[in-house]
């Protein structure tokens, strides 16, 4: 079980690397915003998997909920700002 969870964590880290490529390379700023959205989704799942691996799920779940709510507020604020400003 421990080995399997470690493999899942490594796979999630590789997927985060793929999104990070899009964040760094993205032609427009909206690509970078989409990449950030994907990375934060992966980070929430990564937190829960690490919590299962450490057998302290009750603590890590609360961190994941807080991270999801912060992600919503941040990404919506950036999207609304860019909608008014336009891309440049």
């Amino acid at each position: 079980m421990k080995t399997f969870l470690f493999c899942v964590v490594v796979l999630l880290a590789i997927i985060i690397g793929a999104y990070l490529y899009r964040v760094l390379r993205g032609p427009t700023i909206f690509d970078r915003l989409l990449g950030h959205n994907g990375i934060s989704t992966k980070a929430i799942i990564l937190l829960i998997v690490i919590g299962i691996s450490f057998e302290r799920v009750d603590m890590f779940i609360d961190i994941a909920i807080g991270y999801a709510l912060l992600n919503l507020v941040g990404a919506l604020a950036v999207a609304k700002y860019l909608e008014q400003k336009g891309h440049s």
Partner: protein
Amino acid sequence: MVVAAIGVIRLPDVFTRSHAVSLADSLGAFLMLVGIALNEGLGINMLKILVVLALLYILNPVIAHATIRAAHRSGLKPWQKETS
């Protein structure tokens, strides 16, 4: 989620990439979190994992929609295949 990552790298435009991020990614997160919740057994932890799942399932398409709406409003043109 692997398919979503490949799509984010390979697709040509922000409008097409949003499909990979919002649709495939939500499905992958759904399956993974349901599996973890069933593994955890009945209790408060399962309830919290399902709360995270509901939150992700609402938030992910909302954020993708807001981003694409901003891109559309600011005058970005969708990608079209070149006709030679």
